[in-house]
């Protein structure tokens, strides 16, 4: 091997170095580097963090299951006989085959289609065909112990119907993981009332999964990019609102705010997108009715690493960001209501859903900008993003205002810790 070649190889495998000693810079290689991506899977998605897998009503009766994805791994959220929820790795202990293929299913047991290894609802191996062979031939060794060949069972917790799981038993209790401030907002939507899923939407976007989390932690863009939000006073940077972050990690965040009246826009001269004369023929998709004991009209919570909980007027949604390699992700939307919603409320939630999803009046802008970001960062791994709106600290502003990029800095402050940069 000549010198030139070995130098090149060294450069490729050189440990990545963060370009600043704070989180005000984000190196663009975090969005494209393969080695970094595999480290994320190991340390974040399969490490001691909590991941959303579903809401318990998606598996209502014993034997019901729902497929979910953590990192790149398929898991099963299974309702047990005692009504508890188990989350199991969807990969047979025999040869690794996916045991369940349907998105939703039900059965007395989980049976791998390949060789019919059969597991109970807790993932324990119940039996294997031909264990004692056929007519004295074959069979498993006498010391074959089914107890050692179950489906991997994940650490699981449920918060008022929201189900979270972790591959790593070292994950702290969920309420410690997100902290009391974040629990307060999470249990505002997951308030103990029985939930109802009113539908799903899915998108595949070409960009890195973290770009989407940043987008949701970024009130800066919301007032500039989203003409629709701004014009209808659904969100503007000048409206009454708070930024809250988990003060221990700064990795989880909430923006909560109260709608402006239309035509009262401070700073409008800097918002090229503000169009006060924009009127809808059918305004029902932006007309809310109060349903929470506070006045918050829009609440967006991001939980590290990849869950977004949002109340936007009467639309309640979860967004789960599923990585598909370093440069692509699935955005999986779950739309919720409550079991006691009347028909009028369900219709209202459906109308308000026009703002989000793949054709959403607001969300289209974000989906598209994700792809613009993906295209811009991919060929420029040596450059760095600059995050200096409202300073360089990962902590939220003391006044809790929303003219800040602190939440993105908070995410990367924690990310550096977890990833060892």
């Amino acid at each position, binding site marked *: 091997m000549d010198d030139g070649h070995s130098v090149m190889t060294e450069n490729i495998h050189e440990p990545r170095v963060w370009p600043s000693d704070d989180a005000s810079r984000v190196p663009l290689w975090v969005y494209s580097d393969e080695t970094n991506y595999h480290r994320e899977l190991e340390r974040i998605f399969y490490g001691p963090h909590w991941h959303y897998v579903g809401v318990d009503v998606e598996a209502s009766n014993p034997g019901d299951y729902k497929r979910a994805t953590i990192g790149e791994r398929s898991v099963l959220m299974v309702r047990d006989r005692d009504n508890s929820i188990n989350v199991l790795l969807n990969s047979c202990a025999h040869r690794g085959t996916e045991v369940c293929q349907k998105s939703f299913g039900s059965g007395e047991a989980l049976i791998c289609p390949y060789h019919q290894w059969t597991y109970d609802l807790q993932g324990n191996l119940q039996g294997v065909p031909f264990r004692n062979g056929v007519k004295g031939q074959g069979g498993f060794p006498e010391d074959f112990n089914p107890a050692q060949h179950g489906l991997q069972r994940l650490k699981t917790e449920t918060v008022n119907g929201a189900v979270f799981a972790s591959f790593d038993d070292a994950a702290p209790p969920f309420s410690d993981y997100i902290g009391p401030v974040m629990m307060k907002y999470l249990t505002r939507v997951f308030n103990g009332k029985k939930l109802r*899923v009113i*539908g*799903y939407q899915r998108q595949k976007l070409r960009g890195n999964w973290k770009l989407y989390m940043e987008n949701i932690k970024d009130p800066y863009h919301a007032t500039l990019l989203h003409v629709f939000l701004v014009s209808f006073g659904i969100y503007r940077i000048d409206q009454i609102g708070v930024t809250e972050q988990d003060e221990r990690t700064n990795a989880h965040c909430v923006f909560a705010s109260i709608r402006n009246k239309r035509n009262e826009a401070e700073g409008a001269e800097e918002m090229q997108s503000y169009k006060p004369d924009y009127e809808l*023929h*059918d305004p029902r998709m932006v007309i809310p009715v109060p349903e929470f004991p506070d006045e918050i009209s829009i609440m967006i919570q991001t939980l590290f690493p990849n869950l977004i909980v949002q109340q936007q007027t009467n639309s309640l949604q979860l967004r789960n960001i599923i990585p598909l390699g370093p440069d692509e992700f699935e955005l999986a939307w779950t739309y919720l209501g409550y079991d006691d919603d009347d028909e009028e409320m369900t219709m209202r939630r459906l*109308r308000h*859903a026009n703002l989000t999803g793949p*054709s959403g009046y607001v969300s*289209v802008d974000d*989906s598209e900008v994700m792809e613009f970001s993906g295209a811009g960062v991919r060929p420029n791994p040596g450059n760095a993003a600059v995050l200096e709106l409202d300073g360089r600290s990962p902590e939220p502003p003391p006044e809790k205002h929303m003219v800040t990029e602190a939440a993105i800095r908070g995410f990367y402050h924690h990310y550096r810790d977890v990833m060892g940069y």
Partner: protein
Amino acid sequence: MTATNTSSIVSDNLKSRIDDLYAHYADTICDGNLEAWPDFFVDDCLYHVKPRSNHESGMMLGPIFSENRGALIDRVVAIRNSMVFAPRAMCYVVGSIRVVETDGETARTRSMFSAYHTLEDGDSHLLMVARTFDHVALGDELKFIERVVIFDTERVPGALIYPV
């Protein structure tokens, strides 16, 4: 088979008018003539685009839920003025158009389509494959009372900007 009997009494004239409606609808969108798109609908219309799995689970939720022609105009105005997206061309291939039943005033019809989009890089990609379940008013001009698009391509590649 009842369905066969019903469609056997559909006149060639009606079949031909319905075929033309679907072709005209598709070419209007592919030509980029969005402002004309709401005129394919009666005022009190339903235009609903939803993924197959929601539909089969009895859930109405989907990317687009519009309950009158005004809401369609709202969408055109948003596409033209507020939505931010990369430029693209659309191409629809519509087929299997069939009149399921008719009472002379209106007709229940259905179709299948595949839609492709082409971005600035010049590659064409499949956006979705779908079935439509429609209700058409048979006046001098044919107009949709209902157009319900049930699509299979649930993991939508990017965004669904233009109507389908």
